[in-house]
């Protein structure tokens, strides 16, 4: 199987990744090879097998009481933000 330039561009759009024109042929080649490689799964008989979504079979997700356990750390956390003003994260204008 060979992925086209257009397919790579569409995957990159879904993944919100800017690729340079020079990067595309390499991803076309390597992604095609990876998809071929994992294609080996197709031949495996899996009828009636329940897909495994958790590595420890039979365990269910734990719940906790609906109580406030955390305090407000926004000032500390926003120290890592690229752009903050008045306690708000800044992004380019979304709505005209």
């Amino acid at each position, binding site marked *: 199987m060979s992925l086209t330039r257009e397919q*790579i561009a569409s*995957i*990159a759009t*879904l*993944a*919100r*990744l*800017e*690729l*340079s024109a020079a*990067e595309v042929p*390499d*991803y076309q080649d*390597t*992604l095609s*090879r*990876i*998809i071929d*490689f*994992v*294609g*080996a*799964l*197709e031949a*495996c008989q*899996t009828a009636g*097998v*329940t*897909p*495994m*979504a*958790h*590595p*420890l*079979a039979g*365990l269910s*997700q*734990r719940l*906790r009481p609906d109580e406030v356990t955390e305090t407000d*750390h926004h000032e*500390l*956390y926003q*120290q*890592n*933000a*690229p*752009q903050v003003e008045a306690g708000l*994260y800044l*992004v*380019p*204008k*979304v709505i005209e």
Partner: protein
Amino acid sequence: MSEFHKLGLTALAAGLRARKFSSVELTGALLERIEASQQALNAFISVLREPALAQAAAADRELAAGRGGPLAGVPIAHKDLFCTEGVRTTCGSRMLGNFVAPYDATVVAKLKRSGAIVIGKTNMDEFAMGSSNETSYYGPVRNPWDPHLVPGGSSGGSAAAVAARLVPGATATDTGGSIRQPAALCGITGMKPTYGRVSRYGMVAFASSLDQGGTLTASAADAALMLREMAGFDARDSTSVDTPVPDYVAALEEPLKGLRIGLLREFFDKGLDAHNEQRVREALKVFESLGARLEEVSLPHLPLSVPVYYVVAPAECSSNLARYDGVRFGHRCENPRDLNDLYRRSRGEGFGDEVKRRIMTGTYVLSAGYYDAYYIKAQRVRALINADFISAFKSVDVLMGPTTPTPAFALGAKTSDPITMYLNDIYTIGANLAGLPAISVPCGFVQDLPVGLQIVGPHFSEARVLTAAHAFQRATEWHTRIPAAYA
């Protein structure tokens, strides 16, 4: 010149407690070794000289007062994906180049409570995606046995640091072999516990159903001590398992006699280097001489573990790494035109080639029209591999085989073809897919390069796996070998 580096974690902890030397002396001596080797090995991304010495002085005061935890005053290093409060935590990526963790990962907090000194943060493949430590934004790590060779990955910095005896122990993580494979290539002991045994809170996520924290140390006895201090239930990790942690150290001396060892037929395949195989078979003879019984077992679906992994891990990676949006933390591009441009360029610039490849692979296998054919199919085959392991453990206590197909390879040798690189983890991925505990221990040399033996146990059998590894290390001395340049 001090001889501290020749002592392991257990011996250093005992020496500090007996006040034979101080933590300040020990930490200072190891800092000198780290700084002297940094140019040659590049094992560290951050060296925390001043804070480490301050922690050491505090540990000395505790010890003088007869207090302090089991690791009081012992310097260790953390793989640079464990959040460490107030310290840059990069995950080997440009994306997190300026990220200062606002809190401690549970693993970091527990080891601090046990008294360990954080001496530095180790280099790694970017976001733990790699098997050679060549995908790090901060440059490759070199193998202490031969600087032309890779240390393995993704925990290459932690493995090189322990192999060169810069630290007596380092934390690491294993998603598809990232603890065991570098341990094998660097000639040390690498322990990956059962999924859920060690908290993932504050451990930067790659593939959440596979990621598990563990240890890199010289010996299995040291791994038992370090793991005992790291493991345990954590309400902050929703997949943490609420099962008591046994005293792995106390269990070490239990006799091996009668242990039923399964030889994994699928591990002795045509990809296995003949010399590696010879060392592993010699190790199995040692186990026989200790009273264990060998029998061959087959896990018919195991050869599909690498294809399963390269659907499941990239799928989870594409989802986990969606959080890097250039808004709340991490790299942001210059002068974004609009929000979409901000996302696309921040991510395009912040992530390296292999990370982008895995995000795109994951995006593809999860996209409409392909989800069932790839993702659900892989999860079904994963269930079959898990069932193979469970059935094998009905007749044997542990499984053994090689950790890797070959010893360490040259830098650049496998970077042009991702599949060739991925196949390096062919013997390690199975334990991740099934969530099983597994260890790699040094079992000999091929042309002066170390070879690893892998021991895999049933869920939550860390004590049994460590005890078997320890019995082997009492009968052999491979784990005591130190690369000549660092002896």
